[in-house]
């Protein structure tokens, strides 16, 4: 199989990268009717599989699960998840031949094997649904020409997909139809109906393409979402301990701080996050984030280049073939960091204190979000797609860190994201060596405003505010956030 993207002529590459349409709610007036009475069969029953299935069934659709024989006979967790919630469970041979829509919610690295096993069993004219385009775009999987291939990707962990649905809302969702596989032209209608079934249509739906989804998703998760949050967390913790801040306090500040800080980001973008700082602290955070952007720009560009050329997926697939040797080694190493091993102290940290005492993280987040966004847009990805894969998802990932630190983050995200995260982290830490030498506890661990009179130069402040507010990620963010104002505040602190 050849990398699909690399087989395309440049014009078609640009064409597919540029698919990006934020859909109007009027597009969903048909509800679930395009899938009503159809047999939906979900392959795999992990967090995404189970929770999407529960939602679809509660929307009046016919849902069952198919698992590998070994999973059924061994009564594995996936089998338990499905049967304990009263779903029909069967083998591929039993359920796939009658399925109108087969939903592949297995991990990326199983896709080739799963699709090769189910494709011959699928009936003429059925639909194959993915929630990530890696298999189609990077591995170049060829799907039978009579089958329709679509993607529906809720931009949240599975548990949120369910939680938002039962309260009557949903999570932002990305949909796509693979242009090589839409023989009957029904792909889009089915994808939209699926969104209604999971509740996604209430929180904003972005029509994208398999190509745009993969190239932006990989970039976002490797750099700002997981990579930089990991690097920033570890460096911040180590710096505080080095400077004599109580380790329990440092651990708590880092574990929960990123969640509190990015909650402001979720509500009102970089602007709202920076506005939580005092004027002096804001100017400082702006200056160091500019410096951080200059330092890290080549690394962000390298990641985007490797993703576009297929180099990233090639090396990762080598690791798959190698039994995940690198992945497992790096995962173990992350488990051994001092931050991971120091429990959060039993100290109360006020909400504002997370901003005042952790100015460094605010700077990291601004630098990372803007860089990821800029780099994606320069590579031909549309601003809306770039927004979802940078700013929008950052608070969701931060939430996993608050739950159980980096271990939890790396457990929740896909293996693909985790692999890219470690690659970034390993390259980024040495890059920031000189920068971190200059950092003191006023930026991380203590209140930045302490001992300062708060005076700032008017012109300077105006310029800083202007630079923050006029960035393109803020412009596009303001529009997109309107559609998801009702997103629940996820708080653990």
């Amino acid at each position, binding site marked *: 199989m050849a990398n699909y993207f690399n087989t395309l002529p440049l014009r078609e590459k640009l064409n597919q990268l540029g698919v990006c349409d934020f859909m109007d709610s009027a597009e969903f007036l048909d509800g*679930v009717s395009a899938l*009503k*009475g159809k047999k939906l069969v979900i392959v795999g029953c992990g967090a995404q599989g*189970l929770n999407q299935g*529960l939602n679809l*069934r*509660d*929307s*009046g659709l016919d849902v069952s699960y198919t698992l590998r024989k070994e999973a059924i006979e061994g009564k594995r967790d996936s089998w*338990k*998840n499905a049967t*304990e*919630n*009263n779903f029909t469970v069967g083998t591929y041979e039993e359920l796939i031949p009658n399925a109108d829509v087969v939903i592949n919610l297995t991990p990326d690295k199983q896709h080739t094997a799963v699709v090769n096993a189910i494709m011959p069993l699928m009936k003429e004219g059925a639909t194959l649904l993915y929630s990530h385009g890696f298999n189609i775009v990077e591995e170049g999987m060829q799907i039978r020409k009579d089958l329709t291939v679509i993607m529906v990707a809720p931009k949240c962990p599975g*548990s949120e997909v*369910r*939680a938002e649905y*039962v*309260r*009557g*809302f949903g999570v932002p969702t990305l949909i796509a139809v693979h242009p090589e596989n839409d023989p009957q032209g029904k792909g889009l209608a089915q994808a939209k109906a699926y969104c209604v079934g999971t509740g996604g249509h*209430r929180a904003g739906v972005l029509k994208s393409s398999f190509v745009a989804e993969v190239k932006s998703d990989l970039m976002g998760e490797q750099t700002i979402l997981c990579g930089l949050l990991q690097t920033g967390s570890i460096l911040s913790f180590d710096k505080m301990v080095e400077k004599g801040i109580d380790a329990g306090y440092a651990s708590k500040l880092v574990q929960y701080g990123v969640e509190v800080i990015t909650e402001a980001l979720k509500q009102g973008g970089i602007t709202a996050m920076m506005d939580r700082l005092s004027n002096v602290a804001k100017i400082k955070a702006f200056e160091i984030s500019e410096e951080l952007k200059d330092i890290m720009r080549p690394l962000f560009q390298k990641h985007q280049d490797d993703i576009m050329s297929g180099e990233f997926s090639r090396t990762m697939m080598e690791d798959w073939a190698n039994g995940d040797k690198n992945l497992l080694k790096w995962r173990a190493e992350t488990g051994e960091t001092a931050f991971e091993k120091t429990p959060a102290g039993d100290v109360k940290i006020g909400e504002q204190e997370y901003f005042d005492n952790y100015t460094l993280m605010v700077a990291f987040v601004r630098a990372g979000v803007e860089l990821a966004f800029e780099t994606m847009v320069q590579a031909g990805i549309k601003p809306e797609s770039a927004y979802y894969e940078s700013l929008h998802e950052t608070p969701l990932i931060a939430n996993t860190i*608050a*739950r*159980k630190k980096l271990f*939890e983050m790396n457990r929740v995200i896909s293996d693909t994201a985790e692999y890219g995260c470690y690659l970034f982290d390993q390259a980024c830490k040495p890059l920031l060596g000189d920068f971190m030498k200059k950092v003191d506890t006023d930026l991380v661990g203590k209140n930045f405003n302490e001992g300062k009179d708060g005076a700032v130069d008017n012109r300077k402040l105006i310029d800083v505010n202007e630079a923050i507010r006029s960035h393109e990620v803020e412009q596009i963010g303001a529009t997109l956030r309107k559609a998801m104002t*009702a997103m*629940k*505040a*996820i*708080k*653990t602190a």
Partner: protein
Amino acid sequence: MFKPFVHIQNLNLNYHNKVVLKDLYWEMNIGESYVIGGKSGTGKTSLAKTIAGLIPAQGSIEINFDELSALPKEVLYVESWYQFKNLEGVANFYYQQRYTSQQAKETLTVHAELVGYGKEKGLHFDQVEPILEALGFATFASSQLIELSSGEHKKLQLVKALWLKPQLLIIDQPYTGLDVASRKNLNILLDQVAEEGVQLILICNDSELPACINSFAEIRDGKLVKVDALESSATEIYLREIPAFLKESPVYSSEDIVKMVDVNISYGEKQVLKNINWEVKAGEKWLLQGHNGSGKSTLLSLVNGDHPQSYANELYLFGNRRGSGESIWDIKQHIGLISPEFHWYFDPTATVWQSIASGFYDTVGLFQQLPYTKSTQVDELVEYFGLTENKNELLTALPLGKQRLVLLARTIIKNPELLILDEPCQGLDRQQTQHFNQLVDELCSNGMTLIYVGHFESQLPTCIEKRILLEKGEVKVVETILENV
């Protein structure tokens, strides 16, 4: 010279820019145990939290612990709202998630929770066992925290407090969600710990109290006032005419509201509902009763479309077989529901007005603009419940009694065919309860169907005509208690 046990001087507290406590002075002497009662919203909970050191206030609070006593020199405040976390540390769930099999594994078990608590406080586990027995809680040891009903959560908190025996024990709404038997046993246990030297402050308006209670007080205008006994406090409340839109009779699509045929629900080995057969016809008024943990809330979750195991049972709602292509939103649009769990897990970011308005769409939180007629109806109901001055406040900023009123308003806003009121008056004072039940009677006289869960005969709407009693997941009694004239 004896010092008072608790000595409070010049205590001042503001909350959301409102004066709650003003120059409060109080001496609680050795041997005294108090009930602090009075209207909802006077600052009882704030005072309790201040004494326990949980919220800062201006003024002086001295607690003179008995140095010679073996009891822990500690003030323990038992909240009326108990927050637990799942194993990932997430505190806010949606109540429906209790029923999904996968989610249930993510919280601690009761046993693990108690072992952890005993370890933290240096307590012996054999001492907690009699308390668990007395409150009928021993059978819950292996239950997950998220599986517990509100009454069971309350018991868990009480178990911990009675096990610890702090020198000062403050319990906010001790009887909330407890059935009659548990209330009696709780009073016996409280008397036992009082005998051993624990001094109590109970915050409630109940009349059946432990014998050790020898003093009563209320908060008036920010000051604590000792009273001889609790009066049934007058609350400013709706004796107005109900809004016209609530007088319209519901239009039924089917005579059969609920029909269950041999319904069974279990989690793994544990069977919570056994061979349930039950029919509710349009316009009937049902009382659903049973001990804590008898399966009441599970039964109601089936009716409200919340239970994933509905799909494996023979269940008909509003004339349609469950699982025949309807969505849960199709079901919910016929129903107005309130339960303690629903309140527990309600959206903390919603204002009073938004909370009520969300009842039109059966959503937890408001996600859309209301058309003019609906928005007027919300205003009318806000006015009717006397909530106008609170309408833009966050629901969670109100005292619990008022929060409950808001959610009751949400329950009836769409004038639904079926009202499901699961302990609707928890947290309301006597008078509010009486008025609310009058309102229920009035609504039901227009043909609305009712399923009401309540423990006390004295605190029920008069329209109740049929009763179903559950015991250990089985239907024990189905009877007609009031012939329709």
